[in-house]
């Protein structure tokens, strides 16, 4: 096997794992969009908020420390304890459920039956509000997320070496795959499987699908829309937390995290706004596509020989151009419901 091909397959694998993260963010979008028709622009900020809350709780930060200090003239910043990651994650999940309840109670309950564009605007407002609250609560400095993911303590370090060795024996070339990426992929697969089982086989899952399909009919079989919407926002919050942990572990918890929401948009256009498998496949395609495209276009041997020029930083725009092409030729995405407007 030629070196180029082996190198390309390593790029392919790394792309798959980046795709898992895109897919997770897109999944949060799809959940809320299906159940309530709300396009939740705040999904990315929810991931940021979740990650910051997790780090804050873990490191024993006092929430709203700056505000409290400014008002009361105190100088507190830390409780002086550290919380175990598992407990911190559980507490963060509770915070996300509380957030879901507040979003439903104070925003969307008052907007039932409004135009989609108004609901969308409300989520833009929510995104900025949440970003501000996150800043006020936990401060704006970049933080290190230190769940077991980051140090590779969840998986034994040996795995990396084993993969390296196996691929070396096979191809005469050692793959480098980040431990974090493997963990992220496994967690994502578990999460998606759990979600699918939940929505297919449980009472609440069935009610969720019912609400996604027809509000009136759902009411008539005794489903409380309010309850289901809080449930869906909570699940989306949980998915955001998982995405936030992974992203944060990779590149630190910082405000640019909220921008991953933008990368989820092309994923949604590819996969369709209403399809959970679509979000996954779309995420993987974008992840792999942009990494491979970058690899081919920046390599003088390939692109240079073929086109006579090379391009760099294609990762920045590849996903969006792909989404544009999809919008023109297949606006419902790969798996979305076909859009039929009757006149």
């Amino acid at each position, binding site marked *: 096997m030629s070196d180029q091909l082996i190198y390309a397959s390593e790029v392919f694998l790394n792309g798959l794992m980046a795709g898992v993260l895109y897919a997770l963010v897109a999944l949060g979008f799809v959940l809320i969009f299906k159940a309530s028709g709300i396009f939740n622009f705040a999904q990315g900020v929810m991931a940021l908020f979740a990650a910051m809350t997790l780090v804050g709780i873990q490191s024993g930060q006092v929430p709203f420390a700056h505000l409290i200090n400014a008002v009361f003239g105190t100088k507190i910043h830390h409780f002086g304890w550290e919380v175990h990651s598992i407990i911190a994650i559980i507490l963060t999940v509770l915070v996300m459920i509380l957030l879901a309840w507040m979003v439903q109670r104070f925003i969307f309950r008052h907007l039932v039956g409004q135009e989609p564009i108004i609901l969308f605007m409300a989520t833009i407002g929510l995104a900025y509000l949440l970003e501000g609250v996150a800043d006020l609560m936990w401060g704006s400095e970049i933080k290190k997320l230190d769940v077991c993911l980051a140090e590779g303590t969840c998986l034994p370090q040996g795995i990396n070496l084993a993969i390296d060795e196996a691929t070396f024996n096979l191809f005469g070339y050692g793959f480098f795959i980040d431990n974090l990426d493997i963990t992220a992929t496994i967690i994502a697969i578990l999460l998606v499987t759990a979600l699918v089982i939940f929505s297919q086989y*449980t009472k609440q899952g069935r009610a969720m699908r019912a609400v996604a399909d027809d509000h009136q009919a759902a009411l008539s079989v*005794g489903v409380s829309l309010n309850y289901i919407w809080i449930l869906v926002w909570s699940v989306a919050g949980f998915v955001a937390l998982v995405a936030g942990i992974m992203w944060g572990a990779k590149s630190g918890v910082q405000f640019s995290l909220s921008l991953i929401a933008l990368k989820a948009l092309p994923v949604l256009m590819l996969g369709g706004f209403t399809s959970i498998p679509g979000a996954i496949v779309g995420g993987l395609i974008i992840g792999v596509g942009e990494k491979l495209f970058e690899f081919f276009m920046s390599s003088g041997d390939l692109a240079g020989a073929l086109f006579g020029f090379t391009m760099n930083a294609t990762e920045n725009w590849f996903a969006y151009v792909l989404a544009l092409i999809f919008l023109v030729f297949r606006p419902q995405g790969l798996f979305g419901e076909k859009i039929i407007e009757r006149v």
Partner: protein
Amino acid sequence: MLDQAEGYVTADGRKIGGVVMEMKNITLRFGGVEAIKDISFDIREGEIRAIIGPNGAGKSSMLNVISGFYIPQVGQVFYKGAPRPPMKPFEVARQGIARTFQNIALFEGMTVLDNVMTGRLTHMKTGLWGQAIWKGKAEAEETANREVAERIIDFLEIQAIRKTPVARLPYGLKKRVELARALAAEPSLLLLDEPMAGMNVEEKEDMSRFILDVNDEFGTTIALIEHDMGVVMDLSDRVVVMDYGKKIGDGSPDEVRNNQDVIDAYLGVSHD
């Protein structure tokens, strides 16, 4: 023949029981328009009660009041003898009132079986945790509910399409699936909003037979809205006739048929 407390016996010998649902002086307004004007009537246990009237008479509004989709400005709804406070449609459903819709409201993406199973939601008591962990109780509950759903699917003769997504079914079958979903709730009151609208003669006959069978087999109390006078007269035990939001007749099909106001409404005598 009609005894207030005890009920009555129908022409074909079925015993009709006490009052399940009573509407007292219901008035419903949309802005300045009065859709329902001071209407009172009752629905008795085990009977097939029809609400008929020309287009725009307020029949559907009345059904929506019963099922909680609309809340009347004036009047009181009594359910099983007790006054019912204003409640949301899903709360009404949990009290045992199931309904179908004029324009079919099914879960199009789900299979027939799944649709019928949603009708059992009010009977599933396991909480979120029990469901999530899925052990013992939740499992037994699912099995029991599945049995009820299958029995109703058999009863309405839709076994052949159990696993078909609803979106692919023809109109007449969709109507039947909707009836199955409502029946799956084992309601104490079943509301049917124009169950035969848009059907051909054969489908109408099928549906009539199913409605009679449901009433006969399960003893379900049924209130239905229908446009087609002929069908209603054959099906129902008692009929309320509405016109322009007012009640213009109430009684057995024969009484209603001979009521001068009803004849006028249907033949279109001008309103002064």
